């Protein structure tokens, strides 16, 4: 009873807005002014991911920051300054578990970088499958070294997997932040789009919806993601086994039957995500 009360107290303040729109779950980090995250916010992100997982009508998850200036500036420094090293350890562990949960979810995750995406903010974004930024909306980077620490929410590992070992080390030891355009050149960001915040967001949602039924076989989308995410972390032979098993599941799916049938009949397929 006490524990439950305590949890309710901790999570009473809404720090994450969760909503669904035509197959797309939007998870907005919402703690102005910089959407920095605390243990409480991470719990709510975790809860949102689980909600999106369990909702059969959700096919794509979009992460964004509330407002127009920040996706997220990372971990809340004031919070870090006030807690014990042990708390910090468990805080990081839980953050890792939460971001892993995103990667383990066979639904496409898109990070919509609507503003500055630095430190832990970028670490969250790197756990997404795709990153779409608004041009000139902010900076991106992992400047943790300036605080005498490292990017400890998976940053050192995910960045090196995205941009390569040497570039990742260079970027992190310099503590460099840079434009989204440069991030795109490095392969850290998939798309950088112009536009006013509202127009840009509308475009992000259109982009996300293309991966939902009836346009796309979302089960195949999710399996492609899982094959890549898990396959990259195991020996090649095992990765091929993962791919093969997922493919077999897809071969048995309604969507594969529909997709192949529609192609032969030269008509647009109506996928159901099943």
């Amino acid at each position, binding site marked *: 009873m006490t524990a439950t009360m305590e949890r309710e107290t901790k999570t009473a303040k809404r720090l994450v807005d969760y909503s669904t729109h035509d197959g797309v779950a939007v998870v907005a980090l919402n703690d102005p002014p910089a959407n920095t995250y605390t243990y409480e916010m991470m719990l709510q992100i975790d809860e949102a991911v689980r909600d999106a997982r369990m909702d059969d009508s959700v096919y794509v998850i979009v992460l964004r920051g509330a407002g127009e200036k920040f996706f997220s500036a990372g971990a809340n420094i004031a919070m870090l300054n006030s807690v014990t090293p042990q708390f910090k350890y468990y805080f990081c562990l839980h953050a890792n578990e939460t971001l892993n949960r995103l990667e383990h979810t066979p639904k496409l995750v898109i990070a919509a970088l609507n503003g500055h995406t630095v430190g832990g903010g970028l670490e969250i974004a790197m756990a997404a499958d795709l990153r779409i930024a608004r041009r000139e909306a902010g900076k991106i980077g992992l400047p943790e070294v300036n605080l005498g620490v490292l990017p400890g929410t998976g940053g050192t590992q995910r960045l090196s997997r995205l941009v390569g070992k040497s570039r990742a080390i260079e970027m992190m030891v310099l503590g460099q932040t840079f434009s989204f355009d440069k991030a795109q050149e490095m392969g850290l960001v998939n*798309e950088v789009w112009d536009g006013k915040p509202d127009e840009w967001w509308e*475009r992000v949602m*259109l*982009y996300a*919806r*293309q991966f939902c039924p009836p*346009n*796309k076989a979302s089960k195949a989308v999710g399996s492609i993601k899982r094959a890549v995410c898990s396959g990259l972390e195991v020996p090649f032979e095992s990765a091929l086994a993962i791919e093969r098993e997922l493919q077999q599941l897809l071969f048995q799916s309604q969507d594969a039957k529909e997709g192949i049938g529609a192609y032969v009949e*030269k*008509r*647009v397929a109506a996928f159901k995500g099943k």
Partner: protein
Amino acid sequence: MIRVHTFDEWTDLFRSWQNDLGLEARELREFKFEVKFGEPEAEYIEFGHFKGQRKWPTVMHIPDQRIRDTLQNLIVYQGDTEFASVEQQRNLLHNAPSDYDLLSIMRVMAEEMRHGWQMSFLLVDYFGDEGKREAQKLLERRAEEGKRLLGSFNERVDNWLDFFTYTQFIDRDGKFQLKMLSTSGFHPLARSMGPMLKEESYHLGTGNNGLLRIVKAGLVPPEVIQRFFNKWVPTAFDLFGTDNSSSAQWCYEWGLKGRFDERDNPRDADRGRLNEASRALYRDEICRLVDRLNQLIPERERWLKVPALPFNRRIGQWARQCFTVDGEPLAADRYPAYLASVLPGPADYQALRDLCKEPGWIAPKKQDGPDA
């Protein structure tokens, strides 16, 4: 390498391309190149799977990447033909038979460049980096190097009979293509077509009028004119695409490209034979125009004709087969000599060059017969 990041950068490249081609005439330099969108004729997708849905205002509204890729390809091909035609025709600027004809060809070339400009704008503005890359390539491929995407647009346009035949038959094919794109589900493309069709009609008129004036003057033998028809008409047939085309079928299913008579034809489309249907309509139209030319040729046995569909085709069911202009099969060993006899040869080109220096080989504009 992408050099084009904005449409302004593309226009710089366009000016360089103009300079490379030596298009220095004031009328061409000062032509106001601009993007024109016509009034929307239909707000909703008119055919195919998405019929009844609102037309797509941006590429991102298109629900499937395959549709986006195909759409981009359609625009690239259209744009490629526009710049190619200017490359093919530019040499004629120096030997126009009259001031009227010079102004006509300059207008045709300027408007073809505007059409290329319009297609490039769509690519740069709507299709992201890939579109910018393709818009750049529209100015890098060259007809004289044989690198334009469609066969007709790598052929040489050598003289004014060539030009009038080209505008009569190839630009008329262009009219068909533009009309088919005018019902596209991609709204910016559909709305581009109204102004382009209006301008294109002048080009067709130029070709038809020029041929009427040549036939009326009576100095160029109909047999020579026929050889130029034999050169251009089969390539125009090819431009409609292969028979039983899957691509055409998908374009229709996706609402990207309709039939030529899409808005007037109450029947369901025969999706397996879309290209054949458009080609047949085109053939009917050019047959009528050739009949009008024949009214000016007294000797019936010298009348001009539209080559039969199987003659000298490079794509489709008749591709690379041996047929006469009348559609009769011919032995393969006799075919090369036959082809040389019915297509314009070096002697024809030289004779025309000489003839074009003489006054009276083409009737003046004021003596025009019926126009297109």
